[in-house]
């Protein structure tokens, strides 16, 4: 599998105080996932505290980040109106697959919990419908995930791909805010936590986004 270009960019910018090598972590997860589920064609890891997603895709298997889903949800609504009765589980799964990302037929999301708190989500994507059947226990054991929290086929639309694509911009905005917070803390003589609150309040009062307020603060204080 290959790192999404946006994930490469985000990894370059992301400095984790606790994890020295996030790409190494992704590769370890990839190794375990592919050994347990050979049909695995993509995986995403989301750092929940930072709300950052990194994605690996197997482009050779037809999963390509540049391709749109096989059928967009909006298109489906116009071309093939949804039935007005409740779907049973099988029909729901069929419908979800119709809307699925090309090359992806099943998914599983495995949360990783530390000290009672979810810190990571590992999303695995496979090319066949039953790739994860009877394999979740093995994956949970290998990846140190929380078995009761495992959810299957909840992301056939590969939403984590969109989140991974947005990661570089999120990090750019965070960098802008972090520098502004440091400048405000130095200028006002408060802690960075208090400066963060001041910046957020200023943005709310001005009716602008926090990053916009951060830009103004940097311009004024730098």
């Amino acid at each position, binding site marked *: 599998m290959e790192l999404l270009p946006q994930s490469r960019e985000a990894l370059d910018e992301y400095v984790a105080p606790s994890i020295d090598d996030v790409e190494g972590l992704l590769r370890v997860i990839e190794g375990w996932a592919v050994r347990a589920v050979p049909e695995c064609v993509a995986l995403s890891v989301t750092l929940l505290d930072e709300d950052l997603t990194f994605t690996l895709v197997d482009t050779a298997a037809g999963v390509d980040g540049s391709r749109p889903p096989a059928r967009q949800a909006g298109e489906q609504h116009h071309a093939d109106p949804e039935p007005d009765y409740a779907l049973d589980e099988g029909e729901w799964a069929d419908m979800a697959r119709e809307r699925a990302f090309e090359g992806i037929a099943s998914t599983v999301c495995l949360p990783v919990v530390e000290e009672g708190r979810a810190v990571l989500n590992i999303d695995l994507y496979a090319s066949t419908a039953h790739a994860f059947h009877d394999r979740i226990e093995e994956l949970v054991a290998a990846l140190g995930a929380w078995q009761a929290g495992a959810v299957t086929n909840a992301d056939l639309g590969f939403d984590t791909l969109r989140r991974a694509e947005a990661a570089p911009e999120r990090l750019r905005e965070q960098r802008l805010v972090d520098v502004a*917070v440091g400048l405000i803390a130095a200028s006002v003589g408060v802690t960075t936590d208090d400066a963060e609150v001041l910046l957020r309040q200023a943005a709310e009062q001005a009716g602008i986004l926090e990053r916009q307020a951060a830009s103004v603060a940097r311009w004024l204080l730098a």
Partner: protein
Amino acid sequence: MDESELVMHGLRAMLEPHSAVITVVPHRPDGPAPLSDLTLYEPSAHRRATGARAVPQRFPTRMVAFGWDCSPEAVSTEMSRGAAGFVSKWLPARRLIWNLLQIAEGRVVVDAWNGQPEDAGRPKADKWPLTHRETEVLSMIASGLANREIAERTNLSINSVKSYIRGAYAKIEVTSRSQAVLWAIQHGLLVSGESDVEGPRTVKQAVRA
């Protein structure tokens, strides 16, 4: 360089008995640079030369600030400019030589003793907590540069930049970029007007040269 005759002669006389380990070579700014391991400079001479506002100068490596003003502000200003160390003109010969030998070996030493008696328990020479590279990278972080931009400006790999960031954060005991920015400002690493895409030119030049 830029020194009075009194200091030049005084320094030479002071170090003469230790000529086996250290030799003073005079250097005037308008003359050719002599071969030497370290160059001492008087910080206030630079400030006089550049006007009232302390405009950072481009220093080659191994420049050591050698000044009377040992205030924290003076020290942080010179370190942020890329000085290899800061030694006080109040220091006695042996301590000055010891510090200069340490700096010549690549250590960053700040000995800002101001001539006043020291507390018994206080260390004689405070070490600047960061290496040159860490200082350089931290000042770029504070000016808002992305890791990739820092890597390009320093000719370091991304992983090296991240390693220097982690090392600097650990040494100055911060856990976030905003705390690091605050520390950098408090220690003179972000000179007014440098927080833009240009970045901290001085520190970069000092390390690269």
